[in-house]
Structures are given as structure tokens and as C-alpha cells.
């Protein structure tokens, strides 16, 4: 069975290490915060200018001056710091954030990612996504493996305009955990009950399939 949104978040959360500074994109990546493993502490960075983002506020705590990169009202943890957006992206661009998790439309065997623009549709903008993919060494993309029509999102080459060129090494889809290296996809894990054949069939880019592909356990 394909992973649920929660399972996707759970699988991504296993990549978290103690002491990681993490930037979580909008959507499924945000859910990762709910599955931080036992014994692991991470600190959330929000690119508008907040390090140490806390949970949503209670009604009484709501403050218009306290929002995250998704413009949602949030809180700050003890030991947080708040700074300008220039400082925030200095932090991101300079590679100081340990892990970035974000969604995508397409990823290719070179590690390029398309996530912000579908030609013909209205372009709303890339926000901080281009800076995030260019700045981080360690990025996890989460997305469905294929479109509703069965078209693979793991391609030999992205067809949509790129958000970043050659910057993605890890992808968690609803079917598999895949690494990108040497211009190929490497199948590392499969979702429970999903066959290697199905993953291969829905992966358009060249993929290396090891003899044993462990099943994820939840």
C-alpha cells in the first residue's frame, strides 16, 4: 500500500538526528514535526527569520508579529532567536541548516528538482524554495511517486522549469525511499506491500535496484 501523508512524514522523520537544525516546507514536510523520534531533539528554522519555532499558539497567545514562513501564527521555544530575512537566508545559503524537507512536482536522476511553476498555470512564485535547495547539503524531497494518471515524477530529466539544479540526494515518495547518486536513482526501501516491480514501472528515470529492497516498517 502506498504510504499515507502521515507515514510519509514518519519515514522522513527517521532521517532526523539529534541536534539537527531543520527547515520544513509547507504541506507534508510540516507534518514531520509530529514524528520526531524518541531521544532526538531538533530545532525548526522558519525562513522569514525564526530559529526555534514552537507549536501553534493558544487563542490567548496569538500574536500578529509572530508568524512562520507559511504566514501562520506560531510560537517560539525557549532558546529561540529571531532575525532579519537576510540573516535567515545567510544561514540557509551558507549551509548551516542540517536538513531541509520540501515537496516537489518532479525530481530527476541528476538531482534536479521542479517544484514551483507549471507553465500555462499562474505563477505564484518560488518564495524561499530556490534558496533552500541551493543552500542545503542535505535535502529530502517528499512527493507522490506518480501522478493520478500514473505518470512518473522521477524522471530522466525534469520537464518543468527547475527550482534547483543537481541538488537533491534523497526522495521519499508514497512508494519508496530513493537516493540519487552518479546520475541514477538507487532504490533503498519500499512501502509496505508495494512490490519492486510496481516501483520500477512507475519510475521513468534510470534506477538501480539492489537484490534486497527492505520494506519500511511502521
Amino acid at each position: 500500500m502506498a504510504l499515507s501523508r502521515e507515514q510519509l512524514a514518519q519515514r522522513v522523520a527517521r532521517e532526523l538526528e539529534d541536534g539537527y537544525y531543520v527547515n520544513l516546507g509547507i504541506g507534508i514536510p510540516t507534518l514531520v514535526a509530529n514524528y520526531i523520534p524518541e531521544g532526538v531533539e531538533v530545532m525548526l528554522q522558519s525562513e522569514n527569520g525564526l530559529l526555534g519555532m514552537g507549536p501553534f499558539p493558544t487563542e490567548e497567545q496569538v500574536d500578529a508579529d509572530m508568524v512562520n514562513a507559511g504566514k501562520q501564527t506560531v510560537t517560539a521555544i525557549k532558546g529561540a532567536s529571531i532575525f532579519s530575512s537576510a540573516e535567515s537566508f545567510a544561514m540557509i545559503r551558507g549551509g548551516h541548516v542540517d536538513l531541509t524537507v520540501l515537496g516537489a512536482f518532479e525530481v530527476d536522476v541528476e538531482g534536479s528538482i521542479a517544484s514551483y511553476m507549471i507553465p500555462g498555470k499562474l505563477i505564484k512564485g518560488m518564495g524561499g524554495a530556490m534558496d533552500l535547495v541551493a543552500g542545503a547539503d542535505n535535502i529530502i524531497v517528499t512527493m507522490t511517486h506518480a501522478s493520478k494518471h500514473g505518470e512518473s515524477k522521477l524522471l530522466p530529466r525534469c520537464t518543468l522549469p527547475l527550482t534547483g539544479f543537481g541538488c537533491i540526494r534523497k526522495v521519499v515518495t508514497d512508494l519508496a525511499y530513493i537516493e540519487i547518486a552518479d546520475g541514477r536513482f538507487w532504490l533503498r526501501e519500499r512501502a509496505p506491500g508495494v512490490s519492486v516491480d510496481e516501483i520500477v514501472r512507475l519510475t521513468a528515470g534510470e534506477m538501480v535496484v539492489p537484490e534486497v529492497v527492505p520494506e519500511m516498517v511502521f
Partner: protein
Amino acid sequence: MAGFDKVVANYAEAMVGLEDGMTVLAGGFGLCGIPENLINEIRRKGTRDLTVVSNNCGVDGFGLGVLLEDRQIRKMVSSYVGENKLFEEQLLAGILEVELTPQGTLAEKMRAGGAGIPAFFTATGYGTPVGEGKESRVFNGRHYIMEEAIVGDFAIVKAWKGDRFGNLIYRHAAQNFNPMVATAGKITVAEVEEIVEPGELEPSQVHTPGIYIDRLIQGHFEKRIEKRTVREG
């Protein structure tokens, strides 16, 4: 102006010199920390053909969105403009131009503009539509593109407290783009929640030194919330 007292009497005075066709930089992220009254004054003034540089364009009826109603904006330089119906309409009708700029590059372009740095290299946007037509270069085996600084004819920012000399402190995450915007205007106007006397702000805790501020005014703020998200108390 006597000495360093930057306080002006009213919003009309705050925006003296703003003319059609100028470039205006505006602080704020979404609706957080925006100079809402200075924006309203631009609306009242009716200045047209503006190029506005700001991370977003407000929402319909609030923030920079109000400048769309009388078509005062000709071009918007932003990283994200998805919160605004009127924006979309004017864009599709071809009466509004947009230059999408990655958020961090936008922040850095204004910081550079204020800091006398005409251009810098960044990996952000290399190999993407943002990098098209821009010079690229390899440093230490990695590809970068050259981005040029942004300087505005006017810059408008919103802070929490400001002393009469124009030293500013921002409140929480309302800081966002305001510090860079403040440095990059030929004329910079700040509106604050509270004007205090020089000496009341701890010098090493000032976010924006008064040297960047030409005019200061105290305003009342609605501080509209764009996405109210709460949890059980």
C-alpha cells in the same frame, strides 16, 4: 529638521517627494510587519506607475494590495504573490508586470543595495529560469549566478519602537525584510508603534541604526493576521 530629530508631523509629510514612476521598497512578510499606514498614504496620494519591491503584495484590500485597486503599481518585484485575486487579474490582463525573485536573493539584493555592493554571486537560481540571462561562474567547483543590488527611490518600513534619531527595534518576527529595506532607500521612512526618546533604546540592541532613517512617524496599526492557526489551550 533640527539636528537628528527625524519625527514628522503627519503621513502626508512622511511621503513628500514620492513621484510617479518611482521604485518603492516595502518591508514586511505577508501581512506581518508591513508599513500599513505608509502604504495607505501612497494610496491616498494616488502616485502611479510604481515599481514596488516587497516579498509579497499584501492581500485584496489590505497591505500593498490596496495599491492595485487604482492600478498604482506597474511592476512588482517579489518572491511570492499568490494571496491576491486582483493581482492575478491585473497580471493576466497585462497591466501589471511581475519579476519573481527568490526570497533569499531578494533580501540579499536589498542588503547589497544599502551596503554599496553592486553585485554578488549566489548558487540560488542557477540552472533555473531565475538564472537565465545572468552571468554564471564556478567557484570551488560549484556553479553560481551573479545578482545585482536593488536600491529604491523610497523605502518604507514598520518597526516596533523608534527613538527620535530614527534608531529602530522590531518586534518578534515582524523584523523580516524591514532591516534591509531600511538601508536601501534614497529616502527611507519608518513608521513605529511607539516613539521614544534617544537613550531609551540600548545601543547594542538597536536593529536599524538611525543613519538609515530620514523620517519617522508614530502610527496606529490594525496588524491583520493572514493565517490564524491555533491549538487547544
